[in-house]
């Protein structure tokens, strides 16, 4: 995990080559242990671009989209969950029915459809994954708020003249924030996979930008004979997601052993 974050932050320093640099005379070189040279440790792709540099730059997009989308989803979901759970009534009904309708679509289907409507591009990917991902935050936060609302300290806050907005911000939110952090961590992992899937299907980030999803889509064409092009970005995704999942599991066990994601 740490390595991936460092790679994302210091990509220009760490990458041995320009990830966009195409040199057709050095295309499809194997990795160093497969007969390649140290100049391109993980080999080159069909356009002669350095695979290692592209994997390093790809971490920026993956982590950027992961964090960005979770920030959007977490904000929407937490807000809706808080007001829905606290106020209840018709508002709660509407929010929960919208969540139900959204859950009736496979996540990737909804994301594909919205991407299709908005058009591809980095910003749209973050918006789509953010907007389609709020339900899990909304449901968990609402559930917890419903339980918290009955507690004495919330009643005391209301009785002592605290406004409803103030009660939510100062008394309810701090009590659900640890759950939100745990969900957000696990969601970053899911969002990274979703972004790669969308890009792989040709609906995500601009295919010219080095991303793990687009590298996999390119590499798929060259599987026979040049498997390294698709192998390394896939490994990068897996290791990143694995690291985030482990962190999420650990956070969950630490904050709340009873919670099931």
């Amino acid at each position, binding site marked *: 995990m740490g390595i991936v974050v460092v790679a994302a932050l210091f990509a220009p320093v760490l990458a041995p080559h320009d990830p966009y640099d195409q040199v057709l005379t050095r295309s499809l070189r194997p990795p160093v242990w497969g007969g390649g040279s140290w100049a391109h440790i993980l080999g080159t792709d069909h356009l002669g671009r350095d695979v290692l540099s592209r994997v390093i730059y790809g971490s920026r997009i993956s982590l950027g989209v992961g964090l960005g989308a979770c920030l959007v989803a977490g904000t929407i979901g937490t807000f809706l969950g808080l007001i829905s759970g606290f106020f209840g009534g018709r508002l709660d009904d509407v929010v929960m*029915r*919208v969540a*139900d*309708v959204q*859950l*009736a*679509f*496979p*996540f*990737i*289907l909804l994301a*594909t*459809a919205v991407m*299709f*409507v908005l058009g591809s591009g980095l910003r749209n990917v973050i918006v789509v994954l953010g907007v389609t991902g709020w339900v899990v935050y909304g449901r968990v936060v609402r559930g917890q708020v419903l339980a918290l609302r009955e507690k004495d300290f919330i009643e005391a806050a209301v009785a002592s003249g605290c406004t409803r907005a103030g009660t939510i911000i100062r008394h309810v939110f701090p009590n659900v924030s640890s759950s939100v952090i745990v969900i957000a961590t696990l969601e970053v*992992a899911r969002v990274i*996979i979703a972004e*790669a*899937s969308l890009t*792989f*299907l*040709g*609906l995500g980030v601009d295919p010219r930008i080095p991303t793990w999803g687009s590298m*996999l889509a390119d*590499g*798929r064409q060259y*599987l*026979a004979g040049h*498997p390294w092009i*698709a*192998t390394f970005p*896939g490994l990068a*995704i*897996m290791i990143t*997601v*694995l690291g985030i*999942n*482990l962190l999420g599991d650990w956070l969950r066990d630490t904050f709340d052993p009873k919670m*099931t994601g």
Partner: protein
Amino acid sequence: MSRYLLRRLVHACLILLGVSLVTFLLMHLTGDPVTLFMPLDSSPEDVAVMRTALGFDRPLHLQYLTFLGGATRGDFGSSLRHRQPALGLVLERLPATMQLTMLALGLAVLAAIPLGVVAAARRKSSVSLLAYLLGLLGQSMPVFWLGIVLILFFSVNLRLLPASGRGTIAHLIMPAVTIGTYSMAMLMRLMRATMIEILSQDFVRTARAKGLSERVVVFKHAMRNALIPVVTVMGLQLGTLLGGAVITETVFSWPGLGRLLIQGFNNRDMPVVQAAVFVMALMIVFANLLTDLAYGALDPRVRYG
């Protein structure tokens, strides 16, 4: 039970209404829907005539009601590319996708339950460690990459299985494993966690104190109870599996609903997209309803709660 059934049915119908609204809006959110039905160089007069002919000049809510009426009769219009009824195309592809997802679910359950049970019953064993690693890896691997790795290994290197297409059982194996792995990992982790919790409960201690063998305690007393949440989650897996199918079918060129949908998106063939999206959502709502009912039947606390 009948009140519970009625409540769930009404709930499912409400969700379906929402689903139909979203599906309807898909057509309008992509821009002026008339342009989808006409060549790019059409004159404004032709566009106006077509707009009236197709009814796109009417108020949106009336258009929605027409769409809803059509959808309930199974009429989503004709595919712009194939010149055939869109629903017919979808239903033609549906068996291929169902075959894949059901096999995937079957494989996932067959692997997940025994592994989860053994991992919980013998928490210090190598099986437990294996289950832990499989669970982590299974949930961390992107579906399409797993597909690519399987193709690389079994088709390119070993030449054992075909890399694409449909026809024989050999064609089914890799796509089904690809789709099912995530659900397998999830179900196994759930089975293991539930079993561990149940094995620490009083009735299990009583069963052991009675002198029952560990085998009977684990398989008869604990596993039966642990299966309740697993069955529930299993029913809810259909959405994940269908989502996985959309990507996996592209990787393996599997002629199913997912591939039809992606092709529909790429060709801007909205009637096909609408029909495919609606049918998928319908199946998920139905599966969720069945799961709710099964849960109600298995666990009496739910019905009256």
